[in-house]
């Protein structure tokens, strides 16, 4: 199973990034109410005003009533879930502190795969005939170009 190698990774990254993460951004974490990052509460994400646009969009989008940020953006299995939160938490804190990220914010390719998988978590059966293969570069049917607005409403 994949979770074995994942576990190794978890261990390594937990140690390394935890160190850097704590050293670098304890303050950010504290001040931006970082603890809430680990919850499922969407408000946790808007603690960074940089997420404001996505938050506002989410409130008006079709999934507002049925899915929160984490349902779409964070893996649903336990270990990858907290691993992802940690990794993303690290990058987001770093980005927020140093203001060195590209704007407008763009989802990272890996997180986009996670997102796809989460679409299938809920809609897997519905789209079973059009098999989606998230993460398989050649065979993947990408949901996002057609359904970009489901999470945050139209951008155009």
């Amino acid at each position, binding site marked *: 199973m994949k979770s074995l190698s994942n576990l190794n990774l978890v261990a390594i990254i937990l140690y390394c990034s935890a160190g850097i993460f704590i050293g670098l951004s304890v303050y950010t974490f504290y001040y931006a109410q970082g603890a809430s990052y680990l919850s499922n509460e969407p408000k946790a994400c808007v603690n960074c005003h940089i997420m404001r646009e996505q938050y506002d969009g989410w409130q008006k989008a079709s999934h507002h009533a049925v899915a929160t940020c984490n349902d779409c953006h964070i893996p649903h299995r336990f270990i990858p879930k907290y691993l992802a939160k940690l990794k993303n938490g690290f990058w987001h804190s770093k980005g927020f502190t140093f203001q060195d990220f590209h704007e407008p914010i763009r989802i990272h390719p890996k997180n986009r795969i996670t997102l796809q998988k989460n679409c299938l978590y809920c809609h897997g059966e519905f789209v079973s005939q*059009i098999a989606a293969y998230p993460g398989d570069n050649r065979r993947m049917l990408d949901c996002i170009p*057609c359904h970009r*607005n489901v999470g945050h409403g139209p951008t155009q």
Partner: protein
Amino acid sequence: ENVSQRKKEARQHVFRVVEITEDTIDPVIWGKNYPRQYDGYRRTVDEERTRHGGSEAFNKLDEDPYWRVIFNGYAFGIDYREDRGHAYMLSDQDMTERLKVAAQPGACLHCHSSVIPAYREAAIKAGVSADDSHRQEQIMKGFEIVCAMPYQDARNMVSHPVSCIDCHDSETMQLRVTRPGFLNAIQALAKVDYPLPHLPSIERWRKDGRKDEYDVNTMATRQEMRSFVCGQCHVEYYFKGEGKLLVYPWQKGLRVEQIESYYNETSFKDWIHKISGTPVLKAQHPEFEMWSQGIHARSGVACADCHMPYKREGAIKISDHHVRSPLLNIDTACQTCHHFSEAELKARVEVIQDRTKALMIRAEEAVVALIQDLQKAKEFGISGEQLKSAQDLQRKAQWRLDFVAAENSMGFHAPQEAARILAETIDYARQGQLEVMKLQPVTQ
């Protein structure tokens, strides 16, 4: 209750009721396993007109008589119709007057029938090993043989319009390309240097050092395949040499002048224009080529996205196999990506198409004027040699005009490119007239 009912439906949507193999042509049999797709497929018999397209096979020559002048001396000047649904492709070919006024080769069937088994059969008869491991060899050899046959002989070997097996692998149901014309052409295209940002797998193959041949069925992404299966037939083509081998002229690229320059190199002509005496070219349905120049292709939007959009049927989602004008189902074809009302989207298409149409008529007038001037000059007794430069300009102009006219979206697939091509048409046609005029003093 509703939800659980739908979940149940969803779980059991594929019953493999029957066995399907590479020899199963009959869509009815496939339909037993995939009834929803089959239902859509069958509906391509429907006929409904849109402002510039749709599926009524009206006669284009009656709609706009300029074309009788432009096609004078060629079979298209006799019978040329609006295309309609896939269900008609074989019978429409059987019935066109074009087949009666001129002998046509078996090559015609490549795009109007489920022809692969016929290719294999012909190859095996000709001595290629019947073994399954020689499948591709059978197809390519049989293709050559059938292309060269008289139409009727080949016609007797096929029985269905495009069928499931032409786009799908019988085992995995994945998309695949079967048509030799396309397989050859896409390899040639890959080798060209001109950039193809809308075909990422070719760009990747080029970047990776162009190892072996580019193999569309193993290298293309799924999204590309959703256009390639259509590119099997919706392309410009010609019959090469005595063997009438079907060739898509992409050896220099997909743009109108690249194709022209390929034809010019071998001095190819489709026919000699009866009024002007010019060796001219005929363009046929370059949908794939025009789409390639548009913003949709560049954005990764495939033919199937618009012409076979996903639709909801109960608890599952399927591709609408009722291939047709997207203007007949704007909600599924366009609105997932574009958040405007159906009326607004329709209006946008029509603004683009009306502009194209107006320019097209302007361009037709110019080409017809040139043909008439050439006619008068000939009546005056001016010799062919002197008319050469004007005739060359007619060839250029007519090729461009036809490229837009024969393309079936009335400019929508690439609006600015269509207008650009028509602008060049006008320039060449009017310059041709000037060339003829220059000869006038000589005759006085």
